[in-house]
């Protein structure tokens, strides 16, 4: 049942995973699957490879297929490699009404990519996504754990520069989020 993998979680991640599992009643440890997938995605290059998902299955002592079917259901899990910084730009009604399409076009032009694509240096991925609960500060984008709101082309330019200068991979699990509202 457990699959052999060549990768393993860091000690810090293992400690966090144990803490998460302890929140559920005896035998209900599968509840920890989604939180652990977030940790795995952040730790192993920002996406969930088959190898990473097998590690999650082995860690939780469940079948790999149980992990694949969950990972493929949720839009925050990347099943193919992505850039260091994924720009999730909201395109739904309230953001659309306040210029989201222009923001998406501006980012695309600046980075030379279309929604769904990654820059050739692997730094940025652009995604057009659905409502992120920031409709009153539209237009907006999410990168890692940070919400960047009330965007203008100038703000977007500055954001791209600061992310590029930092050169870091950003994850939804980041604790050093910086919200711009």
């Amino acid at each position, binding site marked *: 049942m457990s699959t052999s993998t060549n990768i393993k979680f860091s000690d810090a991640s293992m400690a966090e995973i144990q803490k998460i599992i302890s*929140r559920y009643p005896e035998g209900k440890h599968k*509840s920890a699957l989604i939180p652990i997938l977030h940790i795995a995605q952040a730790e192993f290059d920002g996406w969930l490879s088959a190898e990473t998902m097998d590690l999650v299955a082995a860690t939780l002592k469940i079948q790999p297929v149980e992990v694949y079917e969950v990972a493929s259901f949720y839009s925050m899990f990347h099943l193919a490699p992505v850039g260091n910084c994924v720009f999730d730009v909201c395109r*739904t*009604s*309230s953001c659309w*009404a306040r210029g989201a399409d222009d923001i998406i076009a501006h980012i695309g032009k600046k980075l030379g990519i279309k929604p769904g694509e990654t820059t050739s240096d692997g730094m940025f991925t652009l995604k057009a996504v*659905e*409502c992120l609960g*920031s409709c*009153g500060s539209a237009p907006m984008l999410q990168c890692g754990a940070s919400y960047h709101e009330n965007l203008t082309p100038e703000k977007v330019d500055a954001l791209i520069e600061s992310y590029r200068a930092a050169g870091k991979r950003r994850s939804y699990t980041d604790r050093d989020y910086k919200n711009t509202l």
Partner: protein
Amino acid sequence: MGKKLLIQNDKVGGIHTLEVYKQHGGYASVEKALKTMTPEAIVEEVKKSGLRGRGGAGFPTGMKWSFLAKPEGVARYLVCNADESEPGTFKDRYLMEKIPHALIEGMITSSFALGAKTSYIYIRGEYFYVARILETAIEEAYAAGYLGKNILGTGYSLDLSVQVGAGAYICGEETALLESLEGKRGNPRIKPPFPAIAGLYGCPTVVNNVETIAAVVPIVMMGGDEYAKIGIGKSTGTKLISASGHINNPGVYEIELGLPVEEFIYSNEYCGGIWKNKKMKAVVAGGSSVPILPTELILKTAKGEPRLMSYESLSDGGFATGSMLGSGGFIVYDEDTSIPMNLYTFNRFYHHESCGQCSPCREGTGWMEKVAHRIVEGHGKATDIDLLWDIQKRIEGNTICPLGDAAAWPVASAIRHFRHEFEALIPKTAVAH
């Protein structure tokens, strides 16, 4: 100025900390409930308050609580729905981010009332940073003895934790949420059984919205009868409204139910009027799922009465001329807005979010997106408007969960009230076929 019960202290510096929250009266409901009240007495106060679920459906909370099965020796759960993914809705995020202890206090008092010993807050994955804020506040509450074993020496014990989702609107539907919390795909369950009988791990479970649970705090403090005096008729209490779109002051406002819609839109205390001195064209009053209304029908009912921010007034006239309070996601559109293009953003949303279990929803949402897309792109066929109408009719009422209806209603209302805008986009040369 209307009464505020939930976010009156949102601007107080440090209110996210337990210390400042307590200085402003925080955790008094836990003291009162656990030390002086029985669980049954709390449920009774919630019933008397007339509180209705703030997640969208408006079901009476006290009644929902009294349906909870209590078999001997079986665990019961309280799960807070913080999935908040209905487009136009961002009030729960505001409450949790600014005053996390308001939700935690409500969770403790409510869990005690329901006899839950383990409770979860299920929050949408995109709100990861809000989950961190809640986790910090929960740690503070454990350290202060409001959570954990033998709370305040009363013998009642409760564990509370936050569970993050991973991007799926459907996980806001309560049974999909429970599936997700069990580590599965977010496919809604067929009801019955209802969660009150068989919910999380097959045990009796109550699922309530963030704002509903936070409202239990003032209800316990002032008593159900006093709470019921606030608001109007069967719309008791206050409501958080997320205001967005073409207004001068987007944001989250706590209103007393019964406030005139016109005052909400034009008063500087709230939305502050339409941006850029433009005129208003339409409003979606309760999140993307509720019918869109043109200016004349959002300000006044078909009978000519002023429309009020309440469950009853917003739905006055049924779907022919009314809408719904829903989640309180209030989106305003100015005179230059293309209603068909706006509808297309909703079609795209529901297609993306359909879990795919029932064919009318899975196929219908995709088909509506496709048809709406060719209309807004200027190559619609003469029959396309009727086709959209027909598809939404076939989805409505024919699905496992209400997402199907939620996808259908925006289409029906946009065509009902703004058919001319769709017609104007169909090329004159398009022949019916």
